[in-house]
């Protein structure tokens, strides 16, 4: 467990796999794998390239959020979904969609030239408010993050309640239903360059902030009292990290919808062979999350072509399967 892989070897392997995935992403089209593609083809440039980049970025955001959640709550099962933050983000997106569908054409005229941007930023903002609120609610219900089981149970309860509220909203505003449905399924099909740029702008500062606080997370691993005795302040740092966690989840959900298990699985894959300091773990989890979602996206596009499988379904099946297998490997520990 403590044996470390050489950082360069790990980095090179993941980079190579990512490049292969991106290459396949440029090949995977509406008629299956298209071996005779050219970069000059507008379909490759305007559709396949942004969605491949988008899938990687959304996965990286989820991987980072997962690693942060697991470190922050000292719980290997913590994940944006189990803490309720993804459901909160989903509710935020649903509320935005409902308001727009209800307001109908009143909102859209006059802002057409900045519409994609306003729309993306607005959706992400609503998702962030939802995700942030959900994490707060979970923490409140669990009376802090000290008790793992209580935290996870509260997260599940908050997730279910917010999911039900989303459904309620959809029943109340049926016009928003078709759009919302594709969000709930999680899909990268509609990701364009504005989404890619937005996700990149969120990912880079989030990684920077997370790295700056990695030492704190390492201290926390030894227990809160030890961390405090090492002179690490608890209050502000924790809130900043919860905010980064909520922002990463929200940005990903607002662009690609609900994509399960990537945030949970990516850190587990990274940690599978070695215990790592958080500075390394966070960066690797982001890279691994990106790789996983990029690969899942290629698979989702190619396996049923010309029809497309929403990638969220695929990650749920594959990620769930992986976790079950891990649980089976370590039955005595009870955690993967």
């Amino acid at each position: 467990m403590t044996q470390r892989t050489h950082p360069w070897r790990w980095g090179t392997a993941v980079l190579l796999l990512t490049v292969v995935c991106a290459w396949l992403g440029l090949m995977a089209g509406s008629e299956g794998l298209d071996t005779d593609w050219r970069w000059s083809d507008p379909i490759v440039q305007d559709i396949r390239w942004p969605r491949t980049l988008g899938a990687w970025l959304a996965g990286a955001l989820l991987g980072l959020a997962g690693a942060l959640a697991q470190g922050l709550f000292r719980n290997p099962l913590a994940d944006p979904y189990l803490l309720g933050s993804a459901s909160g983000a989903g509710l935020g997106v649903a509320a935005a969609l409902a308001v727009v569908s209800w307001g109908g054409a009143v909102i859209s005229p006059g802002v057409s030239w900045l519409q994609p941007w306003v729309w993306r930023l607005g959706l992400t903002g609503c998702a962030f408010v939802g995700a942030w609120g959900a994490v707060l609610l979970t923490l409140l219900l669990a009376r802090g993050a000290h008790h793992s089981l209580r935290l996870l149970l509260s997260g599940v309860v908050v997730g279910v309640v917010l999911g039900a509220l989303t459904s309620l909203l959809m029943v109340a505003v049926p016009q928003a239903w078709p759009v919302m449905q594709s969000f709930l399924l999680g899909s990268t099909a509609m990701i364009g360059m504005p989404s890619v740029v937005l996700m990149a702008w969120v990912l880079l500062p989030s990684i920077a902030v997370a790295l700056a606080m990695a030492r704190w997370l390492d201290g926390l691993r030894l227990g809160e009292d030890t961390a405090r005795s090492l002179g690490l302040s608890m209050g502000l740092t924790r809130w900043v990290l919860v905010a980064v966690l909520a922002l990463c989840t929200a940005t990903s959900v607002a662009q690609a919808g609900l994509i399960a298990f990537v945030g949970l699985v990516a850190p587990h894959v990274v940690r599978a062979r070695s215990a790592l300091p958080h500075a390394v773990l966070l960066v690797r989890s982001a890279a691994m999350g990106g790789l996983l979602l990029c690969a899942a996206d290629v698979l989702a596009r190619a396996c049923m072509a010309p029809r497309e499988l929403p990638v969220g379904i695929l990650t749920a099946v594959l990620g769930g399967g992986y976790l079950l297998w891990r649980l089976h490997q370590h039955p005595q520990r009870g955690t993967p």
Partner: protein
Amino acid sequence: MARSQAGLLGGAKPRFLARVTALLGCLFLGQIAYAASPTVVRDDRGEVIALANAPQRIVTLMPALAESVCALGACNRLVGTDRFANWPASVLALPKLGGMDDVSLEALVRLKPDLVLLGRSARLLPRLVALGIPVMALEPQTQAQVQLSLQRLAVVLGLPEPDRQAAKVWQQVQAQLDQARAAMPPQAKGASVYFEAGSGGYAAGESSFIGELISALGLRNVVPAHLGPFPQLSPEWVLRSQPDLIMMGQASLDPLQRRPGWSQLAAVQQGRVCQFTPEQGDVLVRPGPRLGEAALLMAQCAQRSWKP
């Protein structure tokens, strides 16, 4: 150096002014030309649809829109449709691009459409706008909006005398509506109707285009306007409203008898239930040029239910 620059500028001044005037003149003329251009029309988002040329490669993503384009005689300009479009038969041969929320963007772009007609709430819409593909969002909810959509489409399609073309289609709808009205049995006058538009208890309310047809035929809809165009109602509500006539799709998963309490309904007991075939259902639930045909189907249903 400085002087020569000043001289250049000085010398250029009258010419510069002339250019500005010419430019403004062009802009002004352009504005007039723009305003007078036949292909300027707004869609349901309120966006101006300004196409340089009449579209020749059209993709539709709602069945009613494909039907409207074809009714206006431009069926040969369609290059792709959604999965559900099936009328007229010629659209069946066109590439199918997907359903409500799984349209294949790539397959659509590959068709190189010069106009995509779709619903206002399609998730695809902002993506197509970003890709620079001309889109027109049309989502008629009422008969008046269907008529307006036909007029707008006729203009955008660049038809000669667009108003007359759209009016011709609409007159046909009206003629069928009159025919249906005349065919209504006298006993059906004022009878109450429950129209189930979708399985899962989605009813057609008074404010929907189906509700408008029901009132136009002299029937009374049991679903009042304030419940919205297509509300999901509880089975108990239907029981309590005791409709004289029930119209619904044949494909409902649950047989009528198995719906709790429905055997108590007078309409069920007296056989005044019309179950439409899927093809008839398509005619009834699509807000397009076959509205008149839908009215005729309803009238036939009433004739069957109140046999002389």
